[in-house]
């Protein structure tokens, strides 16, 4: 489709590149294939290599209004999106300050920010729960968002600090000299130049929140049901077709987001080249 991909220019390097991309995609998608088969199986007993009977039951339940899946999907999505937005708003200034010149107490602040990655989540989660109960945020959607920010922020801040550290601030100086106010510099120069990196960081934030189980269960107290919470319940109940269907629903946004971001970053269809597109 792009110029370098038309037939006669196919070199060894490009062929190798395609094979590598194909293998990576296969490694990511292959484990999902048995899930696909399971989710449509009606009866599948031990020595059989293939299900004896097929069924729509699992998928019918997933999309049914009385099932908890659509609500859980919405909870997961709204929590992850809110966590992403709040964390990027906190991490942009924090990352910028932490990447800048030294000031008293900078190391301490940095340490506090990354502390959640050092302390085991389980140890912290109990304390978080007690604090949130005190503030009346336990068992609420907002409480879950707040709790998710704890594991998300360290990664966000470190990623964005790295981004700012590599940023050539002469671009900002140039823009100011051309008459841009501080806000205009940020909106028209700094942010667009950092956008690809910020986008990647947001993707991380979204997925970290999307994957949270323990914090959601503890803080949400069973009232805020997200996909992982539901998935865990089904997995324990032993209904394998339903668990498989839900797992596919759970993993879908991650795959879509990764593919879209990769596509946006590459600026062309490289990300999809290995997915059967010419």
């Amino acid at each position, binding site marked *: 489709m792009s110029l370098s991909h038309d037939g006669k220019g196919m070199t060894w390097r490009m062929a190798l590149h395609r094979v590598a991309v194909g293998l990576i995609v296969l490694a990511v998608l292959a484990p999902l294939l048995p899930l696909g088969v399971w989710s449509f199986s009606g009866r599948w007993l031990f020595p059989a290599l293939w299900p004896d009977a097929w069924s729509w039951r699992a998928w019918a339940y997933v999309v049914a209004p009385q099932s908890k899946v659509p609500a859980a999907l919405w909870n997961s999505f709204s929590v992850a999106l809110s966590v992403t937005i709040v964390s990027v708003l906190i991490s942009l200034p924090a990352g910028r300050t932490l990447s800048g010149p030294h000031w008293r107490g900078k190391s301490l602040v940095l340490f506090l920010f990354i502390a959640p990655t050092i302390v085991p989540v389980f140890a912290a989660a109990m304390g978080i729960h007690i604090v949130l109960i005190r503030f009346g945020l336990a068992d609420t959607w907002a409480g879950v968002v707040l709790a998710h920010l704890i594991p998300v922020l360290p990664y966000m801040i470190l990623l964005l600090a790295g981004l700012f550290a590599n940023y050539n601030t*002469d671009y900002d100086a140039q823009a100011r000299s051309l*008459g841009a106010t501080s806000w205009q510099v940020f909106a028209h120069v700094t942010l667009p130049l950092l956008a690809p990196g910020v986008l990647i960081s947001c993707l991380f934030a979204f997925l970290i929140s999307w994957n949270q189980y323990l914090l959601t269960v503890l803080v949400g107290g069973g009232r805020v049901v997200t996909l992982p919470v539901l998935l865990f319940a089904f997995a324990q109940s032993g209904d394998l077709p339903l668990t498989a269907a839900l797992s596919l629903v759970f993993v879908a946004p991650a795959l879509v987001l990764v593919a879209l971001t990769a596509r946006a970053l590459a600026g062309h269809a490289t990300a999809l080249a290995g997915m059967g597109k010419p």
Partner: protein
Amino acid sequence: MTHILLRALTKRYPAAPSPAVCGLTLDIDAGERMALLGPSGCGKTTVLKLIAGLLEPTHGDIEFDGHSVLAMPAERRDAVLMFQNHLLFPHLSVGENVGFGLRMRGESGPVIRARVAEMLNQVQLAGFETRRPRELSGGQSQRAALARALVLQPRVLLLDEPFSNLDAHLRDDLRALVLDLQRRLGLTTIVVTHDQQEAVMLADRVAVLFDGQLQQVAPPRELYTRPASLGIARFFGNPNVIRGLKRGAVVETALGALRMCHPSPDGAVALTIRPERIRLADGVENTVCGEVTHSAYLGTHLRLTLRLGTDTTLDVLTDSTHDIRPGQALRVTLPAEALWPVIESA
């Protein structure tokens, strides 16, 4: 046209042992082209950033047309700095880059498009609006950056080593372009450079800075022929240096007694003379005799090295029509008016 006055300007960076700029006082006329010349690390770029408002001075004042601009943020000073690296914004097209400042000012789309097209035309990049910066060559990038600065018709144009990343013929083209546009727009222009040739070609006056301190401000010709110190003289190509003891109009040197005509206090003195000012002997006054040790044919000129006595050599640049070979004895004249006394320090 804006008159700029720098008053005892000092900039000290935290943790730096000495100030980057120290007590710089400089008066730049409206519409003048001033070059700040000095070796790298002498504080030239700091001066530009101070004037642009991108740095705050530790002491001193900056006045535009008699009014201090220290309280004015960079974006309102209307003093546009063009960096050494063109710094075109990579996420914008060439047209959007050139129109950036106008857009920040809130000009309307059609006005911006018209002015950008006109400006691109002036820097010979007509029709480049939709190109991306990465598609431009070095010279084109620099021209686009120049257009981006000039389209604002700023009060002051600040150029930081604008052409040092370009090869020689591109540099000449761009210098001519800058001179032409600067004259037409009547911009007060300050150009920072470490290249004395560039300073001489671009500027009405040149301010020489060493270690953050102003050494001399003068028109290029005067700086070349009448440097205030040996350091400045050396910065403008290597002059011959003859040390001696001055009494009246005569200096006793290792080469014999030389007459000089420029005023200087009696006592120890260092005389400089440019290689091209030394003439093949045509009289008796200030004439010395030596042996040619090197002779290099340069096409337009002949460069000779002359040894006199045991430890004195003179570089001589003469007409290339002469055929002078190493080993030959040669008499040369050091004209009294070409012997310029300098301060040894700095």
